């Protein structure tokens, strides 16, 4: 008994320490950096001192207020669009008799496999005012003259591109929650004559509230931090969102990047994130009310769409065509033509070849980078998924002191922009006495540890998942004398398995296509595919960049398909 308690505490203690190590380091570095100056010195250099200059530079001008207003519009617009679209898609795929659901599921998650930089570029090729493929098609169909009708370099263009970019992510999370929902309440409502619409609005949506709030929160924060699309489309739209405000001090015309100002801006990311986490916690205070995963076996009931399935299929086809088909075509076309040209001339077909693919496969760095990427993405995803499960269970279920601090800490990583996290890790692993002696810099291990700081998404989703599990199961285990660790391992984790696997998959995908941190911490011996892709993009080799993006997407698709099949089997769905 004594030994078991010690082991329990040991595991919990190790999880807390791991969290402190993975997130505490960049968090402390961010706060430290925000108060260090002048700009001619890096924060840890001997010439640097504590100062409020960075805060003044960021917050004393009227620019920040305008930035906040623009950001609020951008985030709310993109999140609303993404939420509505992904809820409908998840509901149709998971809770109805829609045909070919597995295939549609795979199609809907496809864009998540494509690096955001490439997705952003494909929007330019699709909705560019003059030569955008979709605009050309629409002008031809509607007999319109001149440029347009759409312009991706606009406010609505940026919101559309960002909103649709996060749909696959939201869809994946929502579909997991809908799949794991006990249908007993819905059945009761239907038996009582509630009808499907009333059941949906009065039962299904309220039951899914913690997950939906969690997904909304995450999407809002991801949009807040989104860098690629605002940088490609937002400058043209004249917008000034937080992410583009980070970009200016990072790319100065003269001198070192102004990391102090970037960190000062990151403080506002942190404050906004904490406010959102607080609101979420308030909204889901009585979590037991939402528990739907019980000890009883179940199979989620599916709504028979009848003839409406054709309408649903039509709507999904339109979405898939716009968000998956056209960008995938642009990507493939660009890789086959060795650079993108609008497909307006049949003569271009004669130039189609696999040259770009061969050059990528012949590139001696490709296999090396692939191996590093798989190792880093898989290990960091495993670390994040396990930590998320332990943390979520501790915060939701246990009565330990300081669990709110853990909750905030685990929710913090998303508020630290990748670039700040990257610089923080660089400084932490190179300039901290004792840590630098470990010799992690330049190896894949520094990337595994650095990329494992992204716990927020996994933690919040798992946390919502734990709140859906009724306590009766753990209580039953406890009555049988099962210690905490055994209960967690044999009762909680198997029930959380679909969510944990979804967290693993998401983290794997995000880290597989990682760019910013991999560039900063990358060297000769630990190159990943993201930086290789960036090398192609930065040297204007769009053909090779597209070919590599296609290869990466196919690989991730295979992993996603395998995971989906595995989750499906485990759930018996």
């Amino acid at each position, binding site marked *: 008994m004594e030994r078991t308690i010690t082991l329990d505490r040991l595991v919990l203690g190790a999880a807390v320490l791991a969290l402190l190590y993975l997130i505490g380091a960049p968090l402390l570095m961010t706060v430290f950096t925000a108060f260090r100056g002048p700009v001619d010195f890096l924060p840890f250099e001997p010439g640097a001192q504590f100062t409020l200059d960075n805060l003044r530079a960021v917050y004393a001008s009227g620019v920040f207020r305008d930035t906040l207003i623009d950001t609020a519009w951008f985030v709310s617009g993109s999140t609303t669009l993404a939420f509505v679209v992904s809820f409908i898609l998840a509901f149709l795929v998971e809770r109805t008799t829609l045909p070919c659901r597995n295939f549609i599921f795979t199609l809907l998650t496809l864009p998540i496999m494509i690096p955001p930089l490439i997705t952003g570029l494909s929007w330019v090729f699709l909705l560019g005012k003059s030569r955008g493929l979709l605009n050309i098609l629409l002008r031809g169909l509607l007999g319109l003259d001149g440029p347009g009708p759409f312009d991706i370099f606009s406010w609505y263009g940026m919101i559309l591109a960002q909103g649709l970019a996060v749909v696959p992510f939201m869809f994946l999370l929502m579909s997991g929650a809908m799949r794991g929902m006990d249908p007993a309440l819905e059945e009761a409502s239907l038996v009582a004559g509630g009808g499907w619409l009333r059941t949906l609005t009065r039962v299904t949506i309220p039951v899914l509230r913690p997950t939906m709030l969690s997904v909304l929160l995450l999407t809002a924060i991801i949009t807040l931090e989104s860098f690629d699309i605002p940088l490609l489309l937002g400058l043209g739209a004249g917008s000034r969102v937080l992410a583009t405000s980070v970009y200016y001090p*990072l790319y*100065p015309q*003269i001198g070192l990047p102004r990391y102090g100002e970037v960190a000062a801006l990151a403080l506002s990311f942190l404050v906004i994130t904490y406010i959102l986490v607080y609101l979420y916690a308030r909204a889901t205070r009585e979590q037991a009310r939402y528990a739907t995963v019980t000890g009883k076996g179940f199979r989620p009931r599916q709504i028979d769409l009848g003839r409406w399935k054709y309408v649903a299929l039509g709507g999904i086809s339109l979405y898939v065509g716009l968000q998956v088909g056209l960008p995938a075509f642009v990507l493939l076309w660009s890789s086959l033509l060795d650079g993108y040209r609008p497909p307006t001339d049949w003569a271009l077909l004669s130039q189609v070849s696999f040259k770009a693919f061969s050059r990528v496969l012949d590139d001696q760095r490709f296999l090396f980078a692939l191996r590093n990427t798989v190792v880093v993405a898989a290990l960091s995803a495993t670390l994040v998924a396990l930590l998320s499960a332990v943390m979520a269970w501790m915060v939701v279920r246990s009565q330990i002191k300081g669990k709110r601090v853990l909750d905030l800490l685990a929710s913090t990583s998303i508020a630290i922009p990748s670039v700040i996290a990257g610089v923080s890790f660089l400084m932490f692993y190179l300039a901290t006495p004792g840590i630098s002696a470990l010799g992690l810099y330049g190896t894949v291990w520094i990337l595994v540890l650095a990329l494992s700081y992204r716990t927020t998404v996994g933690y919040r989703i798992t946390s919502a998942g734990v709140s859906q599990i009724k306590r009766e199961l753990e209580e039953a285990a406890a009555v049988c004398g099962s210690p905490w660790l055994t209960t967690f391992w044999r009762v909680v984790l198997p029930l959380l398995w679909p969510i944990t696997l979804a967290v693993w998959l998401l983290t794997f995908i995000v880290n597989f296509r990682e760019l910013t941190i991999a560039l900063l911490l990358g060297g000769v011996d630990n190159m990943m595919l993201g930086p290789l892709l960036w090398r192609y993009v930065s040297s204007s080799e769009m053909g090779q960049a597209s070919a590599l993006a296609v290869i990466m997407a196919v690989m991730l698709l295979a992993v996603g398909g395998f995971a989906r099949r595995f989750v499906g089997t485990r759930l018996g769905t």
Partner: protein
Amino acid sequence: MHNVPCRGSKGVLVASIALLLILPLTVAREGRAAEDKVMTALYEAAKKEGGLTIYSPAELVLRGLEKEFAKTFAGIEVRSATVEPTELATKLITEKRSGGVRADLIMGSLRDVVDVLDRGIISAQDYASMGIPKELVLFDSKLVGIWNVAFAHAYNTTLIKDPAELPKTWNDFLDPKWKGKLVTWDFSLAAGLAWWGLEIGEAAVIDYAQKLVKTQDVLLTRAAADVVNTGERAIFFNGGLAAAFQAQAKGLPIDFFLVEVQGAPQYVACVLEGVKHPNAARLVIKYLLSEPGKAMVWEYQKSADAHPGSNTPYAKAIEARGGRYIFETQDNYRQRAQLADKIRKAIVGQ
């Protein structure tokens, strides 16, 4: 008396002509021999080191070095890491603080490298003894100029078929006919205009930049080159010669034009302090300035020296189009960069 000097003059004339013909050949041969001697000595010393590591944002040249350098200098492996321009200094300073920089050689624009000059990271070298012309050696023998990043305006030839229509001066861009036709990104817009600003003054150039962005619906995006390559916009305002030549090499309908004055930032290379492979690093610098090295840089990246008379594709193209360039030096670097910073702030309000 008259004939003697005359005969003597003839002899002197013949001798002078012969000398004029032979001397350059002899000097050239001796020069080549000296070059070969330096190169051979460096190669022998570098072979003992076995290889080197290079950090640079110049991805294409790094790739060229990895492939081509080893063909000429067997036994010396080039390993490289592409680093974002603005992160090069951060990486070097941080590595230095942790006990030593991992690279032996870096290549970057002056903007990327200048901030580490006073931090004991770059070593001064006796570049004169390596036969490197003194005009290429900068900042107390710490940096060597290897090529120029020449600004130029790229345009899509399917959208602008007659080059005579193109702007000939900076002010021509303000013509309403170019409204909605220009694309660039804020960094490039400011950096390119700052060179002209050195001539017309700070207030005038800032006023021009604001007017241009406000009235001409200039599209600002990081994907500016792709936007012009696909024909979405007609002109990449303040693009670069290298990007234009690269696009042409891919068969894209891109050409470039120049206005009254453009800027040519300097790309440099340098050996780092206390490195394990100094001779291999020196050999790479020497190679980059040799004819095969220059050919490699042109083949892979379409970059070259833009100075008049340098007999490079850049110099020839600039001369053919009557362009005038202000070249970046250690004297005008800071003034130009500070002005670019002010222009950018005036445009984006940061």
